[in-house]
């Protein structure tokens, strides 16, 4: 028996449903705010104003969004190949090492526009290699990629801790981080773009890697829907049996997809490391890899959706920080709860309202849902 519901028009599928899910998430979050004795409407205003109200807020929101675009794309590329890469966190973290090597070696010699490409390559290569090992184990040994990539997050974290309190730490310093980079490894800010629109920015870390993230989003779209490799990845992702039938090598496609995923995860490190902190510090990824899973799911694995979802999460991060500052009853943990609700409704419960909306559409304008093409499968 095939499903009695057919597809929705694209705008409803990609626009209306996420908006409804978000709305419900915010309503529930509103009750949580009410529960701690604050006014949810004021909280919402603070959240949105904090994220988009002032130039500085916008810059911070986009800075966070940059990070999430990379990790979201990373998760999405693997997901199109049917692989659940939970290791984005670790791949991004260990890629900090590649960036550290490039920046510490060249920051006093080369200008930023030469260091940057080198760092892009280094971060991508290190991230890709960190994705390669679980991919190889999956392809050749059948070790489940979810398990191995989680393990590799811990391995990456341990290696980084060892290096950052040991070999990479300047002898005179007590902080578990590399020395600060010189100007040759500092990425130019993009705040002037926002200032073009008349907003004032005090100081914000939005930098050129935001543009890199947008370019990568376009390249991922090109890869997935316009290249032979992307076609093979999607085939394998939907049906490994069909891929086998089509003569697509399982080993090759798993390894390739995971390396691309790892490379995108790795590039995420450029944003905080070269764009903001100008050093590699302990725990600089701080969960962005896991947020990437939510971003990818919410963005329906499509680069445009991922960019929008990343901006939403950037808003939650930035607006949430403002909220915690303005409303003492709302702590950082509350913000995590709100983010969790968004993930719950937009990611995990994504299909909760779908049948109702489809039924609604079908009753209004059957043709718009393409029903005439669908037949219930007979006996």
């Amino acid at each position, binding site marked *: 028996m095939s499903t009695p519901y057919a*597809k929705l028009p694209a705008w409803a599928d990609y626009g209306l449903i996420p908006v409804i899910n978000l709305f419900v998430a915010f309503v529930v979050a509103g009750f949580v705010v009410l529960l701690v004795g604050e006014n949810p409407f004021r909280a919402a205003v603070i959240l949105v104003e904090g994220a988009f109200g002032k130039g500085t807020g916008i810059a911070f929101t986009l800075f966070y969004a940059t990070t999430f675009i990379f990790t979201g794309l990373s998760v999405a590329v693997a997901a199109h190949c049917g692989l659940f890469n939970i290791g984005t966190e670790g791949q991004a973290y260990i890629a900090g090492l590649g960036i550290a090597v490039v920046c510490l070696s060249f920051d006093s010699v080369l200008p930023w526009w030469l260091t940057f490409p080198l760092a892009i390559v280094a971060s991508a290569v290190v991230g890709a290699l960190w994705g390669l090992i679980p991919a190889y184990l999956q392809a050749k040994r059948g070790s489940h990629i979810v398990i191995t990539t989680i393990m590799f997050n811990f391995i990456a974290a341990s290696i980084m801790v060892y290096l950052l309190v040991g070999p990479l730490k300047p002898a005179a310093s007590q902080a578990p981080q590399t020395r600060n980079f010189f100007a040759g490894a500092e990425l130019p800010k993009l705040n002037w773009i926002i200032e073009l629109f008349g907003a004032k920015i005090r100081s914000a870390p939005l930098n050129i890697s935001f543009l890199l993230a947008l370019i990568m989003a376009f390249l991922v779209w090109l890869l997935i829907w316009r290249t032979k490799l992307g076609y093979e990845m999607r085939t394998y992702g939907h049906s490994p049996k069909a891929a086998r039938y089509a003569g697509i090598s399982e080993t090759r496609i798993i390894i390739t997809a995971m390396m691309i995923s790892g490379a995108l995860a790795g590039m995420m490190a450029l944003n905080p490391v070269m764009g903001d902190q100008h050093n590699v510090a302990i725990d600089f990824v701080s969960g962005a890899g896991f947020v990437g899973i939510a971003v990818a799911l919410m963005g329906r694995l499509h680069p445009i959706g991922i960019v929008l979802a990343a901006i939403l999460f950037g808003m939650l991060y930035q607006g949430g920080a403002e909220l915690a500052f303005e409303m003492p009853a709302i702590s950082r943990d509350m913000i995590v709860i709100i983010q969790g609700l968004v993930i719950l409704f937009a990611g995990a419960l994504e299909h909760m309202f779908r049948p109702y909306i489809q039924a609604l559409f079908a009753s209004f304008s059957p043709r718009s849902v393409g029903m005439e093409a669908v037949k219930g499968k007979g006996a």
Partner: protein
Amino acid sequence: MAQAAIELIGINKSFGAVRANRDINLEIARGTIHGIVGENGAGKSTLMSILYGFYQADSGEIRVGGQPASIKTPNDAIALGIGMVHQHFMLVDNFTVLENVILGAESDALLKRSIAKARSELERLEREYGLEVDPDAIIEELPVGLQQRVEILKALYRGAEILILDEPTGVLTPAEADHLFRILRQLKEQGKTVVLITHKLREIMAITDTVSVMRQGTMVATRETKKTTVEELAELMVGRRVLLRVEKGEADAGAIKLAVKNLTVKDTRGVTMVDDISFDIRAGEIVGIAGVAGNGQSELLEAISGIRRAVSGSVMLDGKPIDLTGAADPGELRDRGLAHVPEDRHHVGLVLAFEENENSILGYHDDPRYLKGPFLNIDAIRNDAKDKIAKYDIRPADCRLKTANFSGGNQQKIVLAREMEQDPGVLIVGQPTRGVDVGAIEFIHKRLIAMRDQGKAVLVVSVELDEIRSLSDRILVMFAGRIVGERGPEASEGELGLLMAGVEHQEAAQ
């Protein structure tokens, strides 16, 4: 006429704009076997799902035993004495027969007491209806025919007076099907009512008392089986005259295109599924492999097409060997002119989530025609897909539509169009018309004959004996991984049926 067991009055059901059932009126007399036939998508399943409580009718009335009934869930249906045997069995494979029978109908919080009670009840049912099954056997160790009996027992154990069977013979040997029919007749003699959903018209003729025909959501006719013919029913189903047996000329067999020698294949559990098989296929002939599902045909197809690794033996394509030990690359075999229409089009032959045009290059996506460097040549792919849609009359004619939204017959045409249009020297086809409606069957059969007449070597594997007999120039019968006989297309169904059941084979072995 006896009193009606079930009356459906003015049933309507729409899914969006699709009217799956329109104004259906049906009366099923108590103590009869009532057949319902129709093409895929005619609305048979929807109607039965309404009766069994999976769906709610938009309007209309159901009466059971003369009383208006409200059936909202399968539990309501069971309470009214309606039982259903599904096409795909709903059994827990690693449970015993007894455990499966009581599943969901346990009479006690403690399993032990339920089981004791069920055992005696089961023995009574088995005696009464000739449904012998060992109550302590594990389901997965039972042959399909017995598993189906367990499904029937399950329904009877729940007090079913009306039994609905959905395509019950699809997985059975002719002998097993005969046994099932005996059971159904016995049920009828005991006063039970049987509703049989099928697309096999011969079965309808053999066993039913009354037959109703559905087409495009409407009930087009109800006939007394004695007073109708297969030809009339087929015409009612399709709405036009249908050739049930495709006409073809003599085969003009040429050189050997595919030579299989001593091929042995094991499945993933290490069980030998193909056991030392040898045969040839020549240019310009169709070789059919008959057999009950699960006798190694699937593994044979997979080994020849390079999907599954063979243990030993050789396969020569145009006189050159295929590397079987390293699991030959299906892509390489395609380049050498071996096209494969797999048995399972939903998971192997197609990616249902893809647009139609994306599926029309599956396996041939390396072809430079469809590429511009590393990029897909979208225009070329879509134009190519449009050509195939026109040539193979694939409906709806929309190459951007998601493949899952095509009917079974059209999905099969998508696969066939892709494989045939590559002009292969050898075409191997698994279950060419499984789940395909009568109109499309005729089209597909004609295409396969046309391939043969162009001098291609065609291997057809099918569990439909009629199809094998209608298409093949030579018939090989597989049983338990071996070829147990070769016959010409004139071989009788009874003879092939015995071979398929392994009778001759076992006698020879003794």
